[in-house]
């Protein structure tokens, strides 16, 4: 672990007087390597290391009796600062709400729509899931199966080609049926696909969801800065949900997404089952990223 790495890097210096700047830089090299190994994007690591280096070369680490722990403390603090506050509730405005989920192909949007539906249902709200992915084979069917498992209504239209129309019709129906929250499942798309990003902007503009959330795969590597940046630029995200964190991926992409969008992390997906949704706890993720 990084903690052990720093401890052994500085161990040989004990008793030889105080640490030098070059000793600290060796420790900083280990920190940088750890972050890159954890899949934090290169430019984000650079920015992060600037802040850490400034603090690390100060009195606190240089003159400490336990420099490796002090350096670890600096890194930990900077990371918690970047990750932002944890959540212990999901804030919806009073009355009727529309949530829209978007992201790259296969990131876990459809499943997460189901999980959010269950979460709201457990909070005694009436959700409706909307099958606005009109492109992937059996995407509509997938959402219907999920809705049926949860006893949550699913709105879909058989032969529509326009996701805007489907969403608008869904919302109209939801209001008639006293639904509290409408959750829009959109098709996965590449951030560099101009036509599909334009389509998403159209949905956002015409449907005006109260919250737009980016669903990011927990094993995403360096590309996280590119895709998150592009989606945020197109839609002004309200939140991020990171999925598939039940595996052994370090999840460094979370730091990249935070750095490039500044948007809060609302939830973490921790399994395929519809109850596998957790609030974001920064301490847990910091420890995971730092290994």
């Amino acid at each position, binding site marked *: 672990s990084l903690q052990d790495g720093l401890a052994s890097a500085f161990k040989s210096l004990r008793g030889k007087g105080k640490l030098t700047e070059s000793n600290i830089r060796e420790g900083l090299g280990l920190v940088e*390597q750890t972050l890159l190994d954890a899949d934090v*994007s290169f430019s984000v690591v650079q920015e992060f290391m600037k802040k850490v280096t400034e603090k690390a070369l100060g009195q606190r680490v240089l003159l400490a009796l336990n420099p490796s722990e002090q350096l670890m403390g600096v890194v930990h603090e900077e990371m918690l600062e970047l990750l932002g506050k944890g959540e212990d509730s999901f804030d919806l405005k009073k009355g009727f709400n529309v949530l829209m989920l978007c992201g790259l192909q296969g990131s*876990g949007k459809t499943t997460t729509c189901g999980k959010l539906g269950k979460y709201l249902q457990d909070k005694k709200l009436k959700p409706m899931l909307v099958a606005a992915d009109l492109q992937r084979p059996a995407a509509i069917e997938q959402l219907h199966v999920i809705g049926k498992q949860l006893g949550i209504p699913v709105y879909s239209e058989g032969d529509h080609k326009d996701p805007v129309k489907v969403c608008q019709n869904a919302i109209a129906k939801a209001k008639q049926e006293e639904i509290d929250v409408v959750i829009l499942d959109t098709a996965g798309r590449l951030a560099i696909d101009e036509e599909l990003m334009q389509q998403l902007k159209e949905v956002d503009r015409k449907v005006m969801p109260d919250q737009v959330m980016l669903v990011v795969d927990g094993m995403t590597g360096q*590309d996280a800065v590119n895709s998150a940046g592009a989606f945020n630029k197109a839609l002004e995200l309200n939140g991020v949900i990171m999925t*598939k964190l039940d595996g*052994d991926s370090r999840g460094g992409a979370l730091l990249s997404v935070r750095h490039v969008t500044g948007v809060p992390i609302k939830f973490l997906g921790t399994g395929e089952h519809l109850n596998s949704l957790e609030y974001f706890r920064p301490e847990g993720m910091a420890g995971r990223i730092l290994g």
Partner: protein
Amino acid sequence: KKEGRLIDDEFLSELFAILVKTDMGAGPANTIRNRLRKDFRGRVVEMEELLGVVREELKILLEQPETPIELVSEGPTVILVVGVNGSGKTTSIAKLSQMFIDRGKKVVLGAGDTFRAAAVEQLTIWADRAGCDIVKGKEGADPASVAYGAVAKAIETEADVCIIDTAGRLQTQTNLMEELNKIHRVIGKQIEVAPHEVLLVLDATAGQNAISQAKGFSDAAECTGIVLTKLDGSAKGGVVVPIRQQFNLPVKYIGVGEGNRDLLVFQSNEFVDALFE
């Protein structure tokens, strides 16, 4: 005459950044940087020249024969497709079957994902589009029995290729890796050297975790190659470099879109050039 730059630490840091951003990992990027520092120290070169050196060795490392999958002369060639959730397995199977059908081969598909919502429906739509047979089991059926049924059907109908889909799973899910191992063994009982190919489907947006995926899936199901998907995006997929170095697992095909003809045979030259674009 173009002016080069002195190979100093700043120059090598720029190179390191380019390499890391491909997702090859800090370790391999460092190894390359250190070796170039040793071989080129104090010389004046263009960044292009240095990258050219790196390109060449990566092209050689990642080289693959022209025909990634050789069909066997007797009986169906059985291909098992595995990988983590959402990586592109089902869609890649659609592409592979279309590719074989375009070559006049007879294909049978096995809908081995008996777990995920509408997984069988999804593959069935692709089978209908390609015009090939598909073997399904009841919902929640043992995937090994579906695999068995698909291979049996392929033998019985003298199909050339049998491709078996499996549910997405994480390499850390021990019971699910056990299940994959069982599917592999069941197929092997029907046709001695089958499955002839076990393709690990890797998402090009994946970072270093792909290495853990390669290890886990290879241990469970003896992978023979990789299908690297979503290369039509901005992700580079450079993690296949350490995977090739550590497991000698080659990339056989790349996915470049969501349609059933968006599959290309892996060409190491083009792939490596794209890494540095």
